[in-house]
């Protein structure tokens, strides 16, 4: 049985693709067979974050249109056994994805024995985002501690609860998790940024991870190596914990507090 996980948010630029890539790598590193699908048609970038952009021959839309087989379009990751990427197409045709087509590809992936199918959703609440979430069993809702991001993710929660296959079939709905990213403990401590508990309280979701704001993320995308593969990075450790929690491990949240404390903070801070 494969599990379909959508990584979604409503708002753009919050860290969905960064998260999809790292969760996919983390699961594969634990021996799972993982397919990562980029649903951001027209703006493909999961392949860049994964570092396989030069190996894209066929894409998701080609598979849907039967221009090629699924096997031909799946890009095998060179670092991790069992990890595959299905790139987005760069077509400008918004109707390139169809519900039937997406379902056929997901069914075929399940038939190939993938344990996890991770759907990297585009921003917005239009068709692409809808199709990315429609067949999901679970959702990782990526949120930045910032008003517009929280509000948009609440709209996504509304759609997950009503506009998905699980909602339509009435079999328990999509399991939702909150992943807070670009978290800045220093700004939280000074009252400039909402805390994980603030966001959790507003949205009423369980937290699967809190990823700190980190310069390692830019370095990771520059080099095409997902940040979770960085050996010495808080962001990597935070994503690794999130992978553990996805698999059911009970792990305390880390990196909620600032590491190094400056002179003033030590004088006046609690």
């Amino acid at each position, binding site marked *: 049985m494969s599990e379909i996980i959508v990584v979604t948010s409503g708002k753009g630029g919050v860290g969905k693709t960064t998260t999809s890539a790292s969760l996919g790598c983390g699961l594969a590193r634990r021996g799972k067979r993982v397919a990562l699908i980029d649903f951001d048609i027209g703006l493909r970038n999961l392949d860049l974050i994964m570092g396989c952009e030069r190996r894209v021959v066929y894409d998701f839309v080609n598979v849907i249109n039967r221009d090629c087989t699924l096997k031909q379009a799946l890009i095998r990751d060179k670092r991790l056994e069992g990890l595959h990427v299905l790139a987005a197409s760069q077509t400008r045709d918004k109707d390139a994805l169809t519900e039937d087509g997406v379902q056929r590809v997901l069914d075929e992936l399940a038939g190939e024995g993938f344990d996890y199918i991770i759907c990297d959703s585009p921003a917005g609440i239009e068709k692409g985002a809808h199709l990315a979430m429609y067949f999901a069993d679970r959702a990782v809702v990526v949120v930045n*501690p*910032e*008003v517009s991001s*929280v*509000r948009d993710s*609440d*709209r996504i929660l*509304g759609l997950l609860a*009503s506009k998905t296959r699980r909602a339509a079939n009435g079999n328990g709905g999509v399991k939702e998790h909150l992943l807070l990213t670009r978290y800045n403990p220093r700004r*939280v*401590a*000074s*009252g*400039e*940024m*909402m*805390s994980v508990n*603030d966001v959790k*309280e*507003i*949205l009423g979701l369980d937290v699967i991870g809190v990823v700190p704001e980190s310069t390692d993320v830019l370095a990771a995308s520059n080099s095409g190596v997902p940040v979770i593969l960085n050996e010495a990075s808080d962001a990597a450790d935070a994503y690794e914990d999130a992978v553990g929690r996805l698999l059911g491990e009970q792990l305390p949240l880390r990196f909620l507090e600032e590491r190094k404390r400056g002179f003033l*903070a030590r004088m*006046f*801070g*609690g």
Partner: protein
Amino acid sequence: MGLLALFRSKPSTASIAKERLRIIVAQERSTRGAPDYLPLLRRELLQVIHKYVNVDPEAVQVHLDREEGHEVLELSVALPDKRGG
């Protein structure tokens, strides 16, 4: 909380953000799944009410509640304190 916080008189921007979200999210959740005409209905009601009373646009709340088996459209208008405003 550190000593610095004691000197801070204004609420932090994070707590303002949280309060704003609490309100907007509650409001949006309450109208979720409601018919698309609700915002338009609200606007037209506001125009009609405006003919008689000078109320604030925010004073008119339209809610759709679902109770067992039926739906209740609830309209509440907060009238201004003083008359002839």
